């Protein structure tokens, strides 16, 4: 209950911070529409020439794009802004303002994960859901309850994995405050807007299990377009949980390091 009240307070403060800069609103709008348009255009160009690639037809690829836009929007809504505030030259750790975060009587990982919201991302979320909805209407089959449940669980696993990666990347700031692994990850994450099946075998493996950006979008999309086995769903959830536990451990190790190294 206290956590929910806290999240509400953070959302309210973030909304006011966002409203302070009007120009940002228009830039964000442009960015969202460009992101949306380039994704659709890419798919349009590819599937204007072929019916399927490696078993992925237009509707399934559209589902991946829909998941990508939805996940990106959720990332931009809260995880991204909150965790990005730690790293970089103007980040909290570099400026020393992280001291105030540590002084709060609330679990630090919770605090650094939910304190900044970018409500404009709700517009991105709407676009993502629009693409996802369109993809669903173009599928060759009607969705069963299992399809939807598997999709939601796989999406939750994907989001958890994304959170874990972002948290782990942000934790590295405790080893080097200038380190911005998040930026490198952003570039790799762009690859997740297309089905991992489109990439060569070795890259597919890397993008599914090593830097699991494909895991984040392709598996939930597959749950809609072709269905997921219980086994793969179980493995996905377990994998996401392991990643989250690992990231949390890394964050705590980083905190201990901060506590013994900063001045």
């Amino acid at each position, binding site marked *: 209950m206290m956590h929910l009240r806290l999240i509400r*307070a953070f959302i309210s*403060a973030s909304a*006011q911070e966002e409203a*302070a800069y009007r120009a940002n609103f228009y830039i964000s709008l442009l960015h969202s529409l460009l992101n949306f348009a380039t994704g659709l255009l890419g798919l349009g160009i590819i599937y204007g020439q072929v019916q399927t690639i490696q078993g992925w037809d237009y509707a399934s690829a559209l589902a991946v794009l829909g998941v990508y836009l939805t996940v990106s929007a959720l990332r931009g809504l809260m995880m991204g802004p909150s965790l990005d505030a730690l790293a970089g030259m103007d980040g909290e750790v570099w400026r020393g303002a992280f001291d105030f975060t*540590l002084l*709060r*009587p609330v679990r630090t990982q919770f605090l650094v994960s939910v304190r900044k919201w970018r409500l404009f991302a709700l517009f991105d979320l709407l676009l993502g859901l629009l693409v996802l909805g369109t993809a669903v209407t173009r599928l060759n089959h009607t969705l069963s309850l299992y399809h939807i449940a598997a999709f939601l669980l796989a999406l939750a696993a994907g989001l958890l994995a994304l959170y874990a990666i972002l948290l782990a990347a942000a934790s590295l700031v405790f080893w080097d405050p200038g380190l911005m692994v998040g930026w490198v990850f952003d570039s790799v994450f762009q690859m997740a807007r297309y089905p991992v099946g489109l990439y060569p075998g070795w890259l597919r493996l890397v993008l599914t299990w090593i830097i699991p950006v494909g895991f984040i979008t392709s598996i939930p999309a597959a749950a809609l377009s072709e269905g997921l086995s219980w086994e793969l769903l179980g493995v996905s959830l377990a994998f996401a949980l392991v990643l989250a536990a690992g990231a949390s451990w890394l964050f705590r190790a980083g905190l201990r390091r901060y*506590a013994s*190294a900063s001045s």
Partner: protein
Amino acid sequence: MNNAHIEVQNLSKTYRVPQRQSGLGAALRSLARREYTEVTAVSHLSFTIQPGEMVGFIGPNGAGKTTTLKMLAGLLHPTGGTAVIDGYIPWERQPDYLRRISMVLGNKSQMLWDIPPLDTFHVLGEIYGLDKTAWQQTVDELTAVLQMEDLLTKPVRNLSLGERMKCELVAALLHRPSVLFLDEPTLGLDVSMQRRLRQFIADTNRRTGATMILTSHYMADVAELCPRVILIHHGRLLYDGLLGQLSDQLAPFKLIRLTLDRDNGSADWRERLPEGTAVLNPDPANLTLRVPRRETSAITAYLLNTLPVVDLSVENPPLEAVIDQIYQEAAV
């Protein structure tokens, strides 16, 4: 002492600091193999502070003041020693402990930059789980005392440094902490704002009974607020006691002020001064000499016997001069 609010024993902190020579070659070498050196920031520091006490923590830059405060606030783990505050070990950072303390850092801000202070206070109220009525009461009370009601609705980035510091103080006191760490709270403020904030801090100490540790490079802050000071240098404790007695114990010299009889053989007074005496003011009507503390009585007697003295007084040097001397000499 059993009822001490803050009890510190042999607290030590050593940092491992990367080190390299200047130049591009050294920079590239340090990418492959980084060399470290150990720096002792705090060494075997021990003291106790009673509930409600206001203690000044003084020392030159790099003496270890901020490091000590950060250890006591639970932000840093010590390398050795113990500290117990209100029954808690600070660096365990238990929520109950963190609810009892607060910290003001003169060179850092906890305010949300783009929105009015009132909104930061709202967020802090939720973080500390404050009841709405209690929160409102505290905000009203603090803003009235600090005369800052008109600042509450302006974005923080539009406020002056002094106005922002008022906001920092409210933010730090919202949850009514019983221990307050103030690290250079008057840094960069004009004398008038310094005086008003000092007054506010003194009132808060009296009103709430909170225990306070203050660090400041402005001796006026320390002299006005803290009956007791702890002086550290190179991380070691040099003095712990009343501010008024600091000069007595630490100044290695005293000042002798003399008025000489100009008509009666005082022209060659300079030649007749004993060894080890420094002339601070050469005007025979108000001659000021600095003499080694241990030889004060012998030199006074000698001066009375050899010079045509009309008036003589022995004084402790001004506090700033003593502190400056201690800072420069590195150790006493």
